[in-house]
C-alpha cells in the first residue's frame, strides 16, 4: 500500500518533470499560460513571451487552458509545483481566475497578466491590457464611415465571461448609437469562435436578408461571418473585426473584410516578460499594476504592414 502510493507520487513527479524542460537556464523558469493557440492571437502572445523570456535567460514552459478555469487552476498548481519564478497569463475568466493568481502569490510566485483583466487588483503584479474601449471606438468610427452612416447591421459578441466582450460592445455602441440611421437588427454571442460565428451568421442572414454590415467582437468571428456571407453570395456586406490577425489582414488585402483593429499582442506579451524580469530582480516593475495599450485601426491603407500582431512603420 505504502509502496504503491510512493510509486504513484514518483510517477507524478516524473510526469511533471517530463512535461517541463530542465532548469538549464540561469534565471529560472517562466510559465506562459494562454487560451488555445487555435486563435493566432493567443499563439502570438505565447511566441512573443517565450522569445523575450529566452532572450533574458529564462527557461519557459508554454501551456494552454482552453478557456477552462478548472484546467487553468491545474496549470497554476503545476507551475507552482515546478517552482516557476513568474507566470505570464492570459486568463480564463475575470472572476474565476482571482483565486488561482492569489494561490500563486501565496506561494511566492508573481503573475503578470496580459490581454484580459481580472476583477481584483493587488493580486497580480501587472495587468497589461489593450485599450479595448479606445480600439472599439476606432473600429466603430470606421464601420460607421464605411456604412455611409446608415443601414441595418448585426453585431457578433464575444464570450460573456470575458470583460473584453462587454467593453468592446460598449465602445462600439458609444459611437454607433449616436447615428440615428444606423439600425442594429441582430446581436448575438458566437463566443469568440469562428465555427460558431459561421452558424450564427447564417441564421442572422435568414432572418435579416437586407443586412448591410456586421461588426464583430474579434477577428476569428469576423472570419466565420465572412465565410458564411461568401457562401450566401453576400460579399457586398461590410464586415469589421477586432484583433489584427494575419487572416483578416489577408482578407482586407483581397477586398473581403473591410477593417479591423490591431491589438499589439506580441509587444504586450514581451512587455509582461520584461516587467516580470524587472520584478524578479528588483522587487518592482516601476509601473502601475493596470496598464492600457492603445489599439490601431487596420484597413486597406496599412494592412500590408501588419505581421503577427505587430505593425511595421
Amino acid at each position, binding site marked *: 500500500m505504502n509502496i504503491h502510493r510512493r510509486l504513484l507520487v514518483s510517477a507524478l513527479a516524473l510526469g511533471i518533470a517530463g512535461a517541463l524542460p530542465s532548469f538549464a537556464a540561469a534565471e529560472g523558469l517562466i510559465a506562459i499560460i494562454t487560451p488555445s493557440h487555435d486563435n493566432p492571437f493567443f499563439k502570438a502572445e505565447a511566441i512573443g513571451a517565450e522569445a523575450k523570456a529566452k532572450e533574458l535567460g529564462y527557461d519557459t514552459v508554454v501551456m494552454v487552458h482552453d478557456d477552462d478555469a478548472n484546467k487553468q487552476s491545474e496549470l497554476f498548481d503545476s507551475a507552482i509545483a515546478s517552482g516557476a519564478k513568474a507566470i505570464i497569463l492570459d486568463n480564463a475568466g475575470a472572476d474565476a481566475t482571482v483565486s488561482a493568481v492569489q494561490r500563486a502569490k501565496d506561494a511566492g510566485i508573481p503573475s503578470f497578466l496580459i490581454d484580459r*483583466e481580472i476583477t481584483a487588483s493587488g493580486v497580480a503584479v501587472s495587468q497589461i491590457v489593450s485599450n479595448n474601449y479606445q480600439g472599439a471606438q476606432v473600429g466603430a468610427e470606421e464601420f460607421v464611415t464605411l456604412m455611409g452612416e446608415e443601414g441595418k447591421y448585426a453585431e457578433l459578441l464575444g464570450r460573456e465571461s470575458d*470583460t473584453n466582450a462587454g*467593453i468592446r460592445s460598449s465602445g462600439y455602441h*458609444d459611437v454607433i448609437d*449616436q447615428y440615428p440611421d444606423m439600425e442594429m437588427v441582430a446581436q448575438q454571442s458566437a463566443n469568440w469562435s469562428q465555427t460558431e460565428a459561421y452558424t450564427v451568421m447564417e441564421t442572422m442572414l435568414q432572418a435579416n436578408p437586407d443586412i448591410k454590415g456586421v461588426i464583430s467582437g474579434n477577428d476569428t468571428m469576423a472570419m466565420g461571418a465572412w465565410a458564411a456571407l461568401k457562401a450566401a453570395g453576400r460579399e457586398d456586406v461590410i464586415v469589421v473585426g477586432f484583433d489584427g490577425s494575419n487572416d483578416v489582414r489577408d482578407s482586407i488585402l483581397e477586398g473581403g473584410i473591410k477593417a479591423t483593429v490591431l491589438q499589439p499582442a506580441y509587444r504586450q506579451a514581451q512587455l509582461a516578460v520584461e516587467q516580470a524580469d524587472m520584478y524578479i530582480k528588483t522587487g518592482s516593475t516601476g*509601473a502601475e*499594476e493596470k*496598464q492600457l*495599450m*492603445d489599439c490601431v485601426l487596420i484597413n486597406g491603407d496599412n494592412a500590408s504592414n501588419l505581421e503577427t500582431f505587430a505593425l511595421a512603420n
Partner: protein
Amino acid sequence: MTRTLMTATCLLALLPMVSGCKIVKNPDPNDAEHAAAQMTDEERMAALVAEVYEPKLLPYMDEKAQEIGAVLPAIASDLNAAGESLGIPKASEGSPWNFVAKGEGVVIASNRESRAAKLEVDVNGDNEADLSIQLGPVIKGTALRDATSFFVFTDFRDQIEFAKLARALNDQAGAAIEIPEGDLVGQTVSFTGAFSLPRQSDAILLVPVHLAVGG
C-alpha cells in the same frame, strides 16, 4: 373616547415615521456603500465625477495647463520631447501623450449642428485652424480622464467602469459649456482643456473645462 382612541392610533401610526427620520439624520456609513453597490456603473461614475469635478479636477487643470503657444510648436518639432517636457506623464508604455493646455484663438470655422459640435480655432494668427474645441453633447475620446493623473486605472474594477468614468467626465464638461449661439466665426475664444495625441500628425481635439467668448 372614540376621538381619544383615534388620536392615539394616529400617533402610534406616526411613530415609525418619526423614528425613520432619526435614521436619516444619522446615516449609517454602511448605507452609502450599500447605495453605491446598487448603482449601475454609469450612475456610480457620474456620482464620482459630480463629487470631484469642481473641487479637484478644475484646480488640477488650471495647475497643469501649459500655454498652447508653447505646446503646439513643441509637438510640431518632436511629439515625444513635447510630451516629456509639457505633457502629462504617460500611465504606461502603450498610452498616447496627453496634454493640458490653455490659451486663446480666433474661430475660423464651426459646426454647431452636429451632435459632436466643435469650433475650429487658429491660435497663431495664420488664419488656419490649429485645433478643434469639442462642444458636445457628444465629446469624443478619453483625454479628460487620461490627462488627470489622480484617476488611476488600477483603482477601478475594470475597463468598463473606467470607460464610464471617461464618458461621465465628457458629459460633465459638455454640460458646463456656456457660450453664445451662432457660428462665432471671427470671434476670439479663451480656453483651458485637455487633448490626447497618439501620433504627431493627428488632429487636436480639445475637451474644454473653461471656455469663454471674447479675448
